[in-house]
């Protein structure tokens, strides 16, 4: 063990703000990624359910919705968060 006390550990030999700045931002960024992934999944499931309900309401509208579907979901590519 290198550290004599908790304060010693936080100080990181005088480099505390650099070391914890690196660790802290990494933790925050990775947490945001997970939140965005959850939202993107939720948005995808909501969109599927909305389309199914729309189809159930009016059987004739189903074809128009299905045709639109191929491009409708492509806009959310790349970045997470999707249609949320």
């Amino acid at each position: 063990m290198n550290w004599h006390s908790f304060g010693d550990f936080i100080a990181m030999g005088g480099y505390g703000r650099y070391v914890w700045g690196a660790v802290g931002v990494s933790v925050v960024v990775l947490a945001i990624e997970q939140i965005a992934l959850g939202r993107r999944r939720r948005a995808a499931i909501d969109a599927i359910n909305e389309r199914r309900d729309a189809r159930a309401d009016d059987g004739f509208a189903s074809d128009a919705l299905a045709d639109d579907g191929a491009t409708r979901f492509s806009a959310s590519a790349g970045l997470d968060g999707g249609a949320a």
Partner: protein
Amino acid sequence: MTSTLTHFPARGAAPLAWKYAAPAAFYPLAGKLVPMLFAAAVVLLALGLGIGFLVAPTDAQQGDAYRIIYVHVPAAWIAMVVYLAMAFWGAVGFVFGTRLSFMLMRALAPTGALAAFLCLWTGALWGRPTWGAWWVWDARLTSVLILLFLYLGFMALQSAIDDPRRADRAGALLALVGAVNVPVIYFSVQWWNTLHQGSSIRFGAAPTMAPDMLAGLLFSALGAWAWAGASVLRRLRAIVLEREADAAWVAQLPEVTA
């Protein structure tokens, strides 16, 4: 959009890889892998960061500032290898026309971009106390900055093209061309006289680190890999739901019918 691969009968003779090339087969498999990977990540990161921050000795030259290595190097490895994986799956999609390969290519990009950003961020915080500069236009740093821009360019291209099939092909091309940058990053510290230090761990040579430092770094890296894998698979599952929204198997998923 219907699947072409699911029309093949799933015979025992068919290689496993082809079976799981169908989104309908891979989606539940990925769902099982995600919690396992997260569990592995938590254990490995606790071990790696525990050794790195509590057990490993202080560096003789850099003091405790060197401990940034336990975040910086795993992020750097992930940023480079994820880009190569993206280019690989783009190439597979080009050759075989498999939709899942393109979806995987897309799923990899944001995780790789975040890793590249964290590599640069932690590098700046390491550079300031050890070099006296947050940033220098050194070959290693510049090539990693280019890597970040390649990721961001890939993601911008994907969202700019409406037709998903065209976006897939354009993205695969960009990923393949940009892959040239990855060996440049890796060898930059050998080819050019860089301020960035050389590799402490290289293929075909003994590592030049204290054993505790090395153990901390390797466990941290393995944990970060498991975390990145879980994130990519979570994103892949969301992309499958977005793209296969009209497929019958999607409508029957418990999370959709619930």
